[in-house]
């Protein structure tokens, strides 16, 4: 019986690489979305809501709900469940609408 999803499908991924989440290093597999890499590291939240500041992460997993919005390499409002992870990506927890720097 498979103990991991990778074992189940006989995954032989390419060389793992590192991304960072709020400065913390996380290992990602080539071919994974940013959200998948974060789930793989046990991280389920990478955004706080605009009004109550509550934590959120991926919910629908298919790009429909926008709960997984993250700031990726300085750019806010990227859907982490759709964006492929790339070596060196810097993910930062997105606060609210992600444009606090604009003073709006």
């Amino acid at each position: 019986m498979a103990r991991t999803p990778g074992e189940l499908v006989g995954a032989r991924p390419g060389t793992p690489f590192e991304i960072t989440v709020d400065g913390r290093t996380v290992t990602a597999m080539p071919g994974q979305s940013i959200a998948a890499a974060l789930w793989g590291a046990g991280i389920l939240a990478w955004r706080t809501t605009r009004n109550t500041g509550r934590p959120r992460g991926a919910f629908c997993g298919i790009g429909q709900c926008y709960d997984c919005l993250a700031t990726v390499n300085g750019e806010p409002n990227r859907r982490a469940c759709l964006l492929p992870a790339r070596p060196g990506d810097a993910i930062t927890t997105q606060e609210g609408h992600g444009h606090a720097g604009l003073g709006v």
Partner: protein
Amino acid sequence: MPDSASEPYDLAVIGAGHAGLAGAVAASERGLSVALLDASGQLGGQFYRHPAPALGAVRPQALHHDWAAFDGLRRRLEKSDVGQFLGHHVWSVVRESGEQWAVHAVTGADGGDERPVRVRARALLLATGAYERHLPFPGWTVPGVVGAGGAQAMLKSGLVLPGRRIVVAGSGPLLLAVASSLTAAGARVPAVVEASGYLGYARRPHVLAVNPRKLAEAAVHASALLRHRVRLRTRSAVTEVHGTDRVEAVTVARVDPRWRPVPGTGRRIACDALAVGHGLVPQIDLATSLGCATRRAPDATTSLVLDDLQQTSVPGVWAAGETGGIGGAQLAGVEGELAGLAVAARLHGKPFLTEHGRARTLRRRRDRMRAFADAMAAAHTPGPGWSEWLTDDTDVCRCEEVTAGRIREAVTDFGARDARTAKLLTRAGMGWCQGRVCGTAVACLAARGDDGTVPPSVERRPLAVPVPLGALASLDEPDEPDEPDG
């Protein structure tokens, strides 16, 4: 491919799931030039979602039913000259002239590349699939609560799980498939919690009898769940999630036939994640913006009205799969192929030979599977009592953080009677997802479930996906036709 780049394609197929693939291949093999567009960078849609090549999965079929059907279509597509536009998020479709349509898309994994693309075609096949229906409950915004379809999608493409001990809850046949996948991939599933029963199916024995593959599929899931000692609790619902920054446990309570929680029946189940969903909703934004007529399906969702050959009420626009009512991947493949044949016959100026062998087989299969889908849909329609498990401070609209209390206030104090008015008063449904997640719930609360049914929710969205202003502005630039990637 069209003969020259300035000529329109014969057919643009939107959506590369089972329906779109089958339609594109069928039409192409009958001589049409076909463009196939999909938001994803990979073929297969949601059902045949699979890991990117770099993940090196040698047995992707371990997470799928009927992988051979997909593999066969993929091979035929590769042999064809269908223009593949993957990673293209279609945001609008417009009629440019009597027999010419323009499909507008933005590119990039999440549509963020801002490069606008326009594909022209003489006919359209909308195979845009579905997304998950959700009903809120206290604690459903806590990290670790994910869509049942979301858990399935993340597993199929990213080979990851949201936790180690995952309760699966809501309603509909997807729950069994999800629980079966999660356990196969190493998760422990302490319970599958289904708000309906399965007796609804038994009321249509003739429909079950002529759909043996569906019974076989259910038997496969059932035996997998037995093997993994997954407890199936019917007529029950998760009425509360415990935990602040992470799921720690859920409360599962019995519900009556109207989905009203039965007081005093709540039991706590420890878990670190919850995968929840209440069926699927047809994705028909593009169709409704074209004016295609809709109907209320037996599961209370809104789907497209289609004729016997899959054409919508708008001539020149066909649809297949979940857009015509939730029915599953096998049905989608049959409808897609039938639509592809019908479009080819129409554009070749031939009357459609309804007694033609293949078409007759497809129509018979479609009718049989549709009957099953309708029986299944009716069995899992949300009961009107579900809203009784909400507390006033439960978020209903996740994007705008609008609570049940505020929506009830809009109804009782300010006279809202429908989802649109509730939205204008509270902002519920006005956020990023455009009401896709909260639409059903807001419509139910606004109508106060008076007649015991789920009222229609707002399905009109002039732009099907968010579009950067830069992409809109560049529409006025000189016209350069776009080339496919593959």
